[in-house]
Structures are given as structure tokens and as C-alpha cells.
């Protein structure tokens, strides 16, 4: 439910603006001379059933083809693309990678990621109504552009958004959330679902710490409150600090 919390409140209106609820006819009734029957039909279905079903099909397809899939999520501007560019520079010689990158508009990120020989597909969601996340059916379609036999690691760069992508399974093996030190330390508590559903967190832009009043310990603690067993890698995509541990962890998961 929406909750409104007021600080330094100056005036207070009390108004009952609740709309009356629709009346509910409990059994038989009559509308305009005609008889009506009300009945309850049990359904018990997940609203995102369709997405989850396609995600499971994707998962099976990836498994059959020996493709390991990671889904990288964060708010806009936290450095997802820069991290992936540097990650590719570490692993693209050894591991056959492919990338699907989602944005509402432009192919700028695909251009940045294309320099390592790995096939890159840009998904622009404006064709899907400007969606704020990638979904399983989009991945299923995008994968048609690849020969899965030639891929060991598929990296999905989701749209910059800490809310919606957390709800949409795409058939990935691992979910990675990026938080940068130019964002608030309390982001994990504000967007708990995202930090709860992910398997690792990257705290990016640590090269900027000397210039910021950022409590890095508090940020890590907040991540661990939401997900106490999550590995947190403190990295800089600019200086590549921390990349050895992050890449080593990723390779362990890939080969495990």
C-alpha cells in the first residue's frame, strides 16, 4: 500500500476521500427484470505465469546447450556497461561470450560492448511499449540471433531500474546487482526485492570514494541486511580495482 509519511508537517486536512466499495451481490439477484447469478471461480494462478513458463523454457534451452546466463541489474548510471566492458576484456579471450543489452532507446551500449569479438544484441524496448525491464519472451526472441553451440556465457544487461526487473525471471543462472558509491547507502533497504533476488552485488566506482562523503561500510551492511549471505565485490570499472575477485568468482560459478 502507498504510505505517506510527512515530516515538518504544517497543516493537516482530514477528509474521508475513500470511494464507496462496489456493492457485491452475494447470490441471485435481478437487474432490469433479468435474473443474475453470482459465482466465484477459483483460479489460483501466478499473474506472471506466462513469463515464468517462458523463463523455464529458456532455462532448459540454455542448459541443453551448455550456456551459462547472468542477468545484470542496477539503477541507471551505476556503471553496468562499463563493468561488462571490463569484464569482457578479462574473459573474452578464454570464454566464448555473448551479450544481450536492453535499453528503451539507442544502441550506444551495444556499440561499447561490441569491441571484444563477442556477439551483441541490443534490445530496444520502445518497440514493446517502452517497457522498463526485459522479460523472458524478449530473451527468447533475442537468442535467435546467436548460435548457442558457440556460447559458454550469455550476459544479459537489463534496463537501468531497481524495481521491475527483479520480478521477471528470464531463465538465467545468476542475478547480479550493481550499486555505485554515487548512489545512497540505503538503496538496498529502499529496493529490497532487487537485493534479495540477486546472487552477488558489485559496489562500483570505489575510485571516487576519496571525493565523496560515502559510508561504504553502511552500504555493505545494508546489502547484507537484505541478503546476509550475498557476496559483495567492491570494484571500480575505471581502475579495475577488485576485478580479479569478481572475475574469479564468476568463473568459479561458470565452471562449477
Amino acid at each position, binding site marked *: 500500500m502507498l504510505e505517506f509519511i510527512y515530516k515538518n508537517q504544517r497543516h493537516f486536512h482530514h477528509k474521508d476521500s475513500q470511494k464507496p466499495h*462496489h456493492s457485491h*451481490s452475494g447470490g441471485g439477484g435481478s437487474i432490469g427484470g433479468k435474473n443474475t*447469478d453470482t459465482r466465484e471461480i477459483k483460479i*489460483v494462478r501466478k499473474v506472471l505465469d*506466462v513469463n515464468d513458463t517462458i523463463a523455464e523454457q529458456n532455462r532448459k534451452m540454455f542448459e541443453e546447450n551448455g550456456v551459462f546466463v547472468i542477468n545484470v541489474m542496477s539503477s541507471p548510471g551505476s556503471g553496468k556497461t562499463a563493468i561488462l566492458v571490463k569484464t569482457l576484456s578479462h574473459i573474452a579471450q578464454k570464454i566464448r561470450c555473448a551479450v544481450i543489452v536492453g535499453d528503451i532507446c539507442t544502441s550506444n551500449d551495444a556499440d561499447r560492448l561490441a569491441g571484444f569479438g563477442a556477439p551483441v544484441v541490443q534490445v530496444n524496448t520502445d518497440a514493446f511499449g517502452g517497457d522498463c525491464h526485459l522479460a523472458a519472451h524478449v530473451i527468447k526472441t533475442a537468442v535467435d540471433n546467436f548460435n548457442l553451440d558457440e556460447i559458454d556465457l550469455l550476459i544479459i544487461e537489463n534496463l537501468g531500474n531497481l*524495481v521491475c526487473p527483479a520480478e521477471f525471471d528470464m531463465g538465467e543462472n545468476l542475478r547480479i546487482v550493481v550499486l555505485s558509491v554515487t548512489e545512497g547507502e540505503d538503496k538496498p533497504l529502499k529496493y529490497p526485492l532487487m537485493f*534479495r533476488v540477486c546472487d552477488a552485488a558489485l559496489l562500483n566506482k570505489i575510485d571516487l570514494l576519496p571525493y565523496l562523503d560515502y559510508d561504504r561500510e553502511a552500504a555493505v551492511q545494508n546489502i547484507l*541486511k537484505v541478503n*546476509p549471505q550475498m557476496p559483495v565485490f567492491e570494484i571500480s570499472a575505471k581502475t579495475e580495482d577488485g576485478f580479479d575477485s569478481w572475475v574469479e568468482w564468476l568463473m568459479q560459478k561458470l565452471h562449477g
Partner: protein
Amino acid sequence: MHEMGIAMQIIEIAVASIPADLKNAQVKKVNLKVGKLSAVVPESLHFCFQIAAQDTPLCDAELNIEEIPLKIRCTDCNVEWTAHEPVFICRQCNGGSVKMLSGRELDITSIEVVDEHN
């Protein structure tokens, strides 16, 4: 942010669940369970649902949302609690090995249908 897509999915599932033998069936109510940790704002969902339901058998339907609390169990000491903040550290043993028992739901449980007949 994605409530419109969710509203459309709800309508699709509800329409597909109307029994074929009902003529002129109108859905009066959709009962929904939404977990506290799900990334859905009920107010936005109500708003989107009203718009998406136009010209469907759900145009007069009420969306009845039951909010499901975030319940957690510690897998080390087995204590269970309802969390009012998104903190997944055991309140008894301080451990981090916990299981979410509820709070992620986004489920349609039933629809209430009115059928008009002579």
C-alpha cells in the same frame, strides 16, 4: 512501473477463466494476493486496471487486493517472524540463513462472475 503490464495479464487470465457456458458473463470482482515484498504498488495497479479493463467483461470489476505479509524463518534456529522492514537477519540468533515463507506473492486466487439469464 510495470503495473499496466500486470493489469493486462490479470485481465487475460480472468477472461480465460470465465466458463464457456456463461453467456453475457460480467466479472464483478478479481481476488488477488500481493506480497509485501513484490514490486507492485496496489494504488497504481488499481489505476491501470480500470483503464485496461475498459471494453472487456471486467469493465465493472473490482480489484480486491489482499496484502500478504513478509514472513521469514531462520533455517538455523527455526524461529519465524513477520518482518515490517526488509531485514533478513534472524532476530533470535543473528544468523543469515533464512527462508522467505511469504511476501513475494502476485497471484490471482479467484474471480466472481455474474451471469445474466432470463
